[in-house]
């Protein structure tokens, strides 16, 4: 259920990845994947934030995913604060996965426990026209 809501909400988000300081070609932009799990670590740092999420598979095994987001500077202009993402909280993260198959990805959007969905930190979308 949660997944279908997220899919419906996605077209409303701007299709932008993190502003470039580097190429994102190590991620597969043609694949959108949603993972659900518990945040283990948040690195609220430049040039990009990193969110580590423990995802429990159907076999009960836990894999730690590393998700690269935008710069804190851009994220605060999209509604984040440095305290928005909290270790211990359960989140759904939509991402472009690494081409290598390792558990990592480029953040597209994240759904917080209260249902709020936030973007990747790309684009000056909150600029006054």
């Amino acid at each position, binding site marked *: 259920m949660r997944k279908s809501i997220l899919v419906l909400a996605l077209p409303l988000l701007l299709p932008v990845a993190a502003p470039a300081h580097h190429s994102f*070609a190590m991620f597969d932009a043609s694949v959108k994947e949603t993972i659900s799990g518990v945040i283990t670590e948040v690195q609220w740092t430049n*040039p990009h934030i990193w969110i580590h999420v423990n995802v429990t598979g159907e076999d009960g095994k836990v894999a730690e995913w590393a998700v690269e987001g935008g710069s804190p500077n851009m994220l605060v202009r999209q509604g984040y604060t440095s305290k928005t993402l909290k270790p211990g909280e359960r989140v759904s993260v939509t991402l472009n996965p690494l081409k290598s198959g390792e558990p990592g990805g480029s953040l597209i959007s994240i759904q917080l426990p209260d249902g709020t969905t936030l973007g990747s930190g790309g684009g*000056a979308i909150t600029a006054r026209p």
Partner: protein
Amino acid sequence: MQAGKLAVALSAMLLVGVVHAAQETPPLEDARPPRVQVSPPYSATHFPDWSGVWAKVRSGDVPVDEDTKGVGTRQPSPIDYQPEYAARYEALQEKVRQGIPIALPATECLPLGMPYMLYTLYPMQVMMTPGMVTMITEYGGFHRNIHVDRPMPEDTPPSYAGYSRGHWEGDTLVVKTVGLRGDTTIDANGLPHSDALTLTERYREIRPDTLEVSVTMEDPKAFRKPYTRVTQWKFQRDWVINEYVCLENNRNPVDADGNTLAILTTNPGD
């Protein structure tokens, strides 16, 4: 009657809010005085109030935020290159088409330099002072000075920002920039240039709070003809630029082959 009570209640709440707000530090937006209106023609000592933070926005068919999908995503070159530089850009684009995570100097946390700093999505703080216009890009906190009606330094060795001298033509700030390094790129697409690149920049407030930024790039070593890019910036009264230290936690290093990596573990020894 019901509506009347509601109005009274709302007014009371509003009043409490106003009194409360008056006791607190006012929000940043309200604390800033409105921009001062200054009439042209301008000079080194009589200049418009462009001080503050500007956001880069799309303009016509030239998106300034063309770097939103990462380095090297724009395919065709808008520049008429000399063969050597056309081949260099084509080789880069071939890697992009193959899905190789290319690296630019900026990937290794070097400054964007000019003119790339005008085109990155990170906002620009402008400071107008007598005889000097200073631009600070949020990206890397990198700054450049434009000397207005003052001489260029005698020695202008290659640098990231180059050396800029400006003068006013009516309502337009015209800037000549020389002394640029040859190893930076024009934007996030990796468009190359040589150390012969010079810029003629024109800044004009085409309507309130909208700055038109027109840059003509001449590079006889790399270009067959000059190239002009026109973009727009929007004044953001309630924005500040924040700290950005690229080396703070860069988990996207560049390997020996020049490809960008993503480091998944916080402790590589794990």
